[in-house]
């Protein structure tokens, strides 16, 4: 670990690695280096270094030799709690023997990932795009204000057409982001209140409404939105001749507890997301069964908060690699 880098302790919701991005709402701060202690994950410090594009990745190489796999996702892809060389992208690179790029960022939603695919991936000329999706985090397509940043979002109009709501130019200013964000937060809370959902005070991750069968109708809109976003991603990749692969991990609730009732299903986001991927004919790897089988009390696959640890990343990479070899995408 570099001793010259500043030391930092990170809690959930810290945004020290972000900066405003006019296209995506927020993106990584370029050329940043910190030694970070992640509360609730590991003890000690982990080195975090962003390259010149603001990604926690190697310096950019312009020459292309062999296949390129581009990985997109949230904090799991970014590697919260683990050293850079202990992430699934680095394990995948060893196994595939090709270039694997990591464009993961904490709290990135599927809609932002879609915008990255539409606007940024051409520059990297990838052969395969891997989208790591922690199934619980699919609800981020409904969150238009994240950790002090407003962000663009998709919505469905009354006819079911997909529309992109771009960000106000005022969003570049923190004070306006707070004002707009306060409105977005109130609007979301009001919608949830009308649906009998309470996510604010006294939130219990074990009875998150996303797992409750009697709350399914509230999330129908969200899954319809995800369906249309997936269609856009898949169509873009088909047009460009890029293989698209989704990777799903086990979520914290599946790993740490059994469901208390038949009406509380911790696999519900997995099931609904997989049904949409199948509907859109998008390839996916569900690593949750492997992760659950390999999880031990004395040798877990995740940290207490559900982020993959070194072992989890290794298993996830193996599952992705096996699938890509089976499909012949690395030949």
């Amino acid at each position: 670990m570099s001793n010259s880098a500043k030391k930092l302790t990170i809690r959930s919701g810290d945004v020290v690695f972000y900066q405003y991005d006019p296209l995506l709402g927020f993106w990584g701060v370029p050329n940043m280096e910190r030694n970070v202690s992640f509360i609730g994950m590991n003890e000690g410090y982990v080195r975090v270094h962003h390259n010149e594009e603001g990604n926690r990745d190697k310096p950019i190489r312009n020459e292309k030799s062999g296949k390129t796999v581009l990985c997109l996702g949230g904090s799991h892809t970014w590697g919260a709690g683990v050293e850079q060389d202990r992430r699934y992208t680095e394990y995948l690179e060893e196994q595939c023997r090709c270039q694997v790029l990591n464009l993961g960022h904490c709290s990135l939603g599927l809609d932002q990932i879609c915008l990255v695919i539409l606007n940024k991936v051409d520059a990297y000329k990838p052969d395969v795009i891997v989208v790591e999706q922690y199934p619980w985090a699919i609800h981020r397509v409904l969150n238009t204000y994240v950790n002090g940043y407003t962000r663009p979002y998709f919505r469905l109009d009354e006819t079911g057409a997909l529309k992109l709501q771009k960000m106000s130019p005022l969003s570049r200013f923190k004070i306006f982001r707070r004002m707009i964000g306060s409105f977005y937060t109130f609007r979301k809370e009001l919608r949830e209140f009308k649906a009998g959902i309470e996510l604010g005070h006294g939130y219990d991750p074990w009875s998150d409404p996303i797992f409750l069968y009697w709350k399914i109708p509230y999330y129908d809109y969200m899954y319809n939105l995800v369906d249309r976003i997936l269609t856009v991603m898949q169509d873009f990749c088909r047009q460009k001749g890029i293989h698209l692969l989704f990777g799903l991990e086990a979520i914290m609730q599946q790993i740490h507890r059994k469901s208390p009732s038949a009406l509380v299903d911790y696999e519900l986001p997995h099931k609904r997301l997989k049904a949409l991927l199948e509907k859109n004919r998008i390839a996916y790897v569900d690593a949750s069964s492997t992760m659950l089988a390999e999880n031990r009390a004395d040798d877990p696959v995740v940290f207490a908060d559900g982020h993959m640890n070194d072992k989890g990343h290794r298993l996830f990479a193996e599952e992705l690699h096996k699938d890509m070899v089976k499909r012949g995408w690395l030949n």
Partner: protein
Amino acid sequence: MAQLIDKEILKDIFRFSAAQKSFSRKTAYLFKGLLFAPFLSRVVRKAAADDTVSASSQAGDDIYPLF
């Protein structure tokens, strides 16, 4: 005022603020709700307008092209 703020939205705001647990939260949510009521009403009106326009319109700055 009647045009600026949707009556149903106003009722929802009163119910929502009344459902908060402490007096300070009730007050804060009522204040925020009344402040945002015109914008929330605009969203409702816009959604209704979408319904009318979308049947005939296939393109526009904020309608994302599906391939």
